[in-house]
């Protein structure tokens, strides 16, 4: 059974998302809404991560080293200027999509396994992941025109 493979992928992605929100919160603390909401959303991901861990243990018979390779090339360059906020939010949004997709895949397995707990965990976490993505998208849409048309480097 390769479910543990995907759970590992998910667990790793939620961890990255936790760190990413935390990072953006600190980096853009001059934007008060970014600082606070990102802290809140980071806490959500941390909580999700905790919940997923119990399933990682439950289905741990087959380990995979996939998660170690996952590390995306995000937040690597030292960005600055007004584009930085937009690009950082963009990257975090990509991470939320990664998490969301993992959930969709895992949910299919949960249905097959009739694992009610995993299904409930999916329902709780993936709804919040959608809200994370929605918030990011709203904020990106707000920042985009000003950044691309008016702001200078």
């Amino acid at each position: 059974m390769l479910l543990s493979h995907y759970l590992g992928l998910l667990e790793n992605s939620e961890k990255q998302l936790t760190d990413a929100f935390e990072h953006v919160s600190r980096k853009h603390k001059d934007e008060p809404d970014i600082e606070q909401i990102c802290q809140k959303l980071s806490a959500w991901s941390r909580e999700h991560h905790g919940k997923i861990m119990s399933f990682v243990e439950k289905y741990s018979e087959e380990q995979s080293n996939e998660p170690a390779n996952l590390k995306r090339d995000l937040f690597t360059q030292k960005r600055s200027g007004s584009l930085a906020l937009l690009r950082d939010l963009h990257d975090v949004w990509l991470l939320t999509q990664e998490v969301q997709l993992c959930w969709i895949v895992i949910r299919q397995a949960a249905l097959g396994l009739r694992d009610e707990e995993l299904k409930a965990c999916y329902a709780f976490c993936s709804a919040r992941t959608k809200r994370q993505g929605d918030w990011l998208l709203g904020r990106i849409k707000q920042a985009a025109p000003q950044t691309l048309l008016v702001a200078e480097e």
Partner: protein
Amino acid sequence: MKETRDSIADIWGSRTGYEGQWPVRVDERVEEEPDHWVQSACVLCSNGCGCDIGVKDGRIVGVRGRAVDSVNHGRLGPKGLHGWVANNSPDRLTKPLIRRNGKLEEATWDEAMSLIVSKSKELIDKHTASSIGFYTSGQLFLEEYYALGVVGKAGLGTPHMDGNTRLCTATAAAALKVSFGSDGQPGSYSDLDTTEAILHVGHNIASQQTVLWMRVLDRLAGPNPPKLVVIDPRATYTVEKATVHLAPRVGTNIPVMNGLLHLIIEAGQINQEYIDAHTLGFEELKQIVAKWTPDRVERLTGVPADKLREAAHILGTCNSLVSTALQGVYQSMQATASAVQVNNLHLLRGLIGRPGSGIYQMNGQPTAQSTRECGADGDLPGFRNWGNEEHIQQLADLWNVHPDQIPHWSPPTHAMQLWRYCEQGSIKMLWISGTNPLVSLPDLARARKILAKEDLFVIVQDAFPTETTALADVVLPAAIWGEKTGCFTNVGRTVHISHKAVDPPGEARSDFDIFVDYSQRMDFRDKDGNPLLTSTWQTTEDAFNAWRECTRGRPCDYTGMSYAKLTGGSGIQWPCNEQYPDGKPHLYEDGVFSTDIDYCETYGHDLETGAPRSKDDYKLLDPKGKAFLKGVDYEPPHEEPDESYPLWLTTGRLVYHFHTRTKTGRSKALYDAAPDSYVQLATEDAARYGIAEGDMVEVTSRRGKVLEPARIGDIEPGLVFIPFHYGYWDKPDRPRAANELTLTEWDPVSKQPHFKYAAVRIRKV
């Protein structure tokens, strides 16, 4: 001099207990006998009391209440009776000023406007119209807001338009939209005449809306007094009359409201039939509030469980209920979510849409409702939905412009974001009208730095020199109330006309004339090359008639109103149209709310993150006229007292002053009644710090410090209070504006800043 009552010493005047109709009492104060009276309404708070302006030899010499007016039945409070004196103040701005070599110097209108126009054109060329922002007020008239809305949205096409209403009433609007799909107060002031119970949450009505409070006081003095529940951390005048007073810790409105709803649901005092027929979301709400048992509420908020039960009993058993909320809710943590809980209370009990039951998501400023209606702030004219292409098309048709000319590609820029863009340098011209942000914004040190920036061109349009005009590049002298004709809506949807009584001083012009002049000079044109709407507006009545068309079919329908109809009698509530020629006292009588997907003003937000909901998400909910019941769990404030800053600071208002005292500070009687700021401390805290009444106290937060004389008592230990009105124009010698201390942060949904809490330390100096 004739004065029917001394409103300074006796703020609310004598009592006439009543049942049925609130009796008339005409309050009047004139310095000389007027040769004629001109119809108006007071603009010193959101009550908007009908009044007449007394004129003698072309000067305002006094005011009297209008007996026929449905809002005040002739009464006026201290601000209304004395505030007009400011119009005659010798320090009015009478000529445009332009900054030359670092100094503001007198200029002609032509020079000032030409400079603004050439600057605008240069910026649009280089950086698009998104480099220009407008920051207006809750003080202008409806026609002026609409003119500004059209100039900004159809002329320039900038998304950056908001006002200081964001600081005072954004949450009121947000909460109404969240629950009912559109802005607009469901009830009517007349509900106070018959209601069995009143709930005031974070609303010091006795000091804010003195005349509305007279109505409550007169009910309390009558044969069948309503029960009064007041939620406020301070012992205010309002609290003195409470049947039950709940004093929660700062930032804990949500647990208290959740606790009340929980008790009412548990006791089976809800109207299940109404809930099933007219609302969505009951089960989720029930689950959320179920966690808030009285004991848990007590532990977190400090409100004794028994008191909470007492309050819940009143709110759960009354057959009619009027609730009001203001800044104690709107400027606190979880602002929109807490305000929504007040709406939930009425929905759960089915106490809405009929006489005796109303919700007042109050406004702080007199004409804030007009800003929201007309689209001079983050809203679109006529409560249109920025996410609804059809609504944008309607505006485009009205103005005969391409729909993409009207910015609607993202949520509208809110005030705090606007200031942030100025700080970052991507807004390069900021046009401020009728407000004084350098006293009213949070974190003043940051605000001052922004306005002083070299690369920000600042235009300030005001009647008086203020802390803000001092930093402007161009100052435009504006006419004010009494010197121009226009309409405005009070918090209860009542529209008043205010006729011009006297000429403005010197070369001062109305805000309306200034915006129309700008539009003409900018040569804004519609799709067919004709001058944009504003250029065909000769008078404010033309603008009012255009505005009427804009409201057709929308919740704030003005089509049945006209200058003629508004003149002579009482103010009129919207909607006013063929069906309701005299206005409509209650919205949602049929339990059908403005939530239909094609009609609603918003597709809503995530209450916790503020993320806007898309049309597709909304389709899934498909409320079809049902109201939303929404709840959230408690979140602690973002800054809490710690070792270095061990006390809570909260801010608020005084009965004698309005906002930054630009007007009330220029009325001798009001000035003398409350000449200076202060810091209010609990007796225990005063003893701990060795502070006696009147001692000078230094109050410091992470952002700044102020020096205030101490006033001791009537406040919970651990909390200190400073009134927010005071700045520097009349007393530059010591830091005293409360907003030196407050935080730059805001509610995720309404984007209203959190003024009501900050961590501070104090010491005697």
